[in-house]
């Protein structure tokens, strides 16, 4: 993506983001290589929209989310947070003390509702913690705000003195949502928020996230591996493969008219909940490339059935092929790829 100034309706612009983890070995723990978990990721999220970030395990989705918040220090690239009150802020250049100003505006909710809550804190303390740390309020005002937040996420006031073990998975995820929303954030990074939940509970949490988004004008980066859930909740979707974004488009464009061969394979692989739509998967030979030792050229080329000579030589960059459809493939314009087939509702 070019270095043009950020437009007003974009809340977060990420350019060429990199996060490399050193691999150490030997007696003196010398650095012998790098795991390039995130390797040149660029995307933007507009105000009030949901950008879905999908990809298979180990592709760097979660690392991307955490690096954007600087829970992990980026190795390179730009993260520009365009807060309406603060103006565009280069997150990657901020000093630790300056991070405190933007932290309340960017929050995260985690996948595992069982390990992300301190078992020794009551519900009241858990939800009050972000308010207390940021010295937003105290005393009666704090208690009122906690009550308000609990009501917002559908938890009863009587539960205030209970500990996390007394809550079910769905309720714990609601606690995580209350904590993330406590400081009135603009951007919420949802890292697999419903993967650990049963389907009936998953629907409750997804509906809650949608309601809260409409009510507080929230912007979501929704990280998930479940393509059906992402299709349901996202306005636009970005697909990652081995630390790199291979495609980004509006949800319908991406699902029905994919332009990258990896996205095509993902779409064919979704187990559709319709016995009249039984599909054969596209065979991807070999295994997902290792981010410590990626192949030359396009990282997907050893598994791609359309690969040609140039694919092993030159790494394609992510480019706009029109209509906000971004693809990293040399042959994006030429290939005729199959997307989902529209079906009538049941």
């Amino acid at each position, binding site marked *: 993506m070019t270095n043009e100034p950020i437009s007003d309706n974009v809340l977060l612009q990420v350019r060429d983001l990199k996060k490399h983890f050193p691999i150490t070995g030997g007696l003196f723990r010398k650095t012998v290589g790098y795991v390039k978990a995130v390797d040149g990721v660029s995307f933007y999220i507009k105000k009030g929209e949901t950008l879905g970030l999908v990809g298979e395990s180990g592709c760097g989705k979660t690392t991307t989310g955490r690096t954007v918040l600087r829970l992990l220090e980026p190795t390179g690239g730009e993260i520009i947070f365009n807060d309406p009150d603060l103006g565009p802020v280069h997150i990657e250049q901020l000093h630790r003390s300056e991070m405190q100003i933007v932290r309340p505006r960017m929050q995260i909710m985690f996948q595992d509702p069982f390990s992300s809550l301190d078992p020794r804190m009551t519900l009241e303390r858990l939800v009050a913690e972000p308010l207390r740390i940021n010295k937003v309020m105290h005393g009666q005002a704090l208690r009122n705000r906690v009550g308000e937040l609990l009501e917002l996420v559908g938890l009863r006031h009587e539960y205030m003195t209970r500990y996390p073990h007394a809550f079910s998975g769905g309720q714990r995820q609601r606690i995580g949502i209350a904590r993330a929303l406590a400081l009135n954030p603009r951007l919420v990074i949802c890292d697999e928020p419903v993967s650990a939940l049963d*389907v009936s509970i998953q629907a409750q949490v997804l509906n809650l996230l949608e309601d809260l988004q409409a009510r507080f004008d929230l912007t979501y980066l929704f990280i998930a591996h479940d393509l059906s859930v992402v299709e349901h909740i996202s306005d636009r979707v970005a697909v990652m493969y081995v630390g790199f974004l291979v495609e980004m488009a509006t949800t319908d464009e991406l699902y029905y008219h994919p332009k990258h061969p990896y996205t095509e*394979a993902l779409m064919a692989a979704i187990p559709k909940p319709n016995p009249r739509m039984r599909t054969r998967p596209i*065979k991807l030979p070999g295994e997902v490339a290792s981010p410590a030792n990626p192949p030359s050229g396009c990282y997907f080329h050893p598994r791609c059935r359309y690969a040609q000579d140039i694919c092993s030589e030159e790494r394609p960059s992510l480019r706009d092929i029109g209509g906000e459809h971004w693809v990293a493939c040399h042959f994006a314009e030429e290939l005729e790829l199959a997307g989902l087939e*529209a079906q009538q509702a049941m």
Partner: protein
Amino acid sequence: MENNDDIVLRVEGLYTYFHTTLGTVRALNGVSYTVPRGKVLGIVGESGCGKSVTSLSIMQLVPPPGKIEQGKIWFRAARRGGEWIEITQLDRHSEEMHQLRGDEISMIFQEPMTSLNPVFTIGQQIGETVQLHQGVDREEARQRSIDVLEQVAMPNPERIVDNYPHQLSGGMRQRAMIAMALSCTPTMLIADEPTTALDVTTEAQILDLMRELQADIGMSIMFITHNLGVIAQMCDEVAVMYLGQIVERAPVDNLFFNPKHPYTTALLKSIPHIGSRSRDRLASIRGMVPDPYSTVPGCPFHPRCDSFMPGICDADMPEITPVEPEHYVRCYLYE
């Protein structure tokens, strides 16, 4: 026992309880069903509904303090000329039970890493099953291992046969597990969430493989999952479980296009239907699955049901009734 050729397994009125210090967990509350020959029966339900305990009961592998309290399980053993064996009469440690497990009925578990032994090679683990049940020597068992690895489309089987589980990726481990389960060409395969831990492209390939093998070998599969998408792609018939009971049983097309039980309907409405291009709100099921130590009077689903009829649904358990040929529902709306 009736002599119905189309059935390989019959479960009748099965009650499996876990007597813990905190109380009794009624994991199975009178489950009855049959597994058709050469078909895939899907068992679907949310966590804690008893799907896995059903399969463990068949294998007599329910871990203590769990116990089969009541009910009967019959299995038609192909190796014995189609004789009906009453599994519930056998001791779990008996020679007969050992004969059944792995040879006649095999099982694939969710997590291939914890079900493979890390200190033996893939070949040794597959070979063990073959040596045990078919009485062949080590050299032949190794050859047979390579053959089945080839059958499950494992790349480079001659090399993989000498690899240890940690050297394989998740998808390859699950292929190795399937190879092990198929090594003795079982009459029935129980697959307990076999693809849940896998990525979507790997999952699709494993499901495709299982469908192909099923058509080739003609075995019966009991496919346990919580994923309705996988059910739609894999199964011929489906049983929906809720709180230790089968609430609906139907051919797969009927279940998705003409569901009867309020729980099935609600479950289908609560998942995002990919390809429907609708951004409508999902219909969630209110409340949650009750705590496992409690007992719900009447129909177990009544506290969460939109069609709840006071005085009827909370009084007695409804009977399972046919609404159409091969379509059964346990609900007062249809009695």
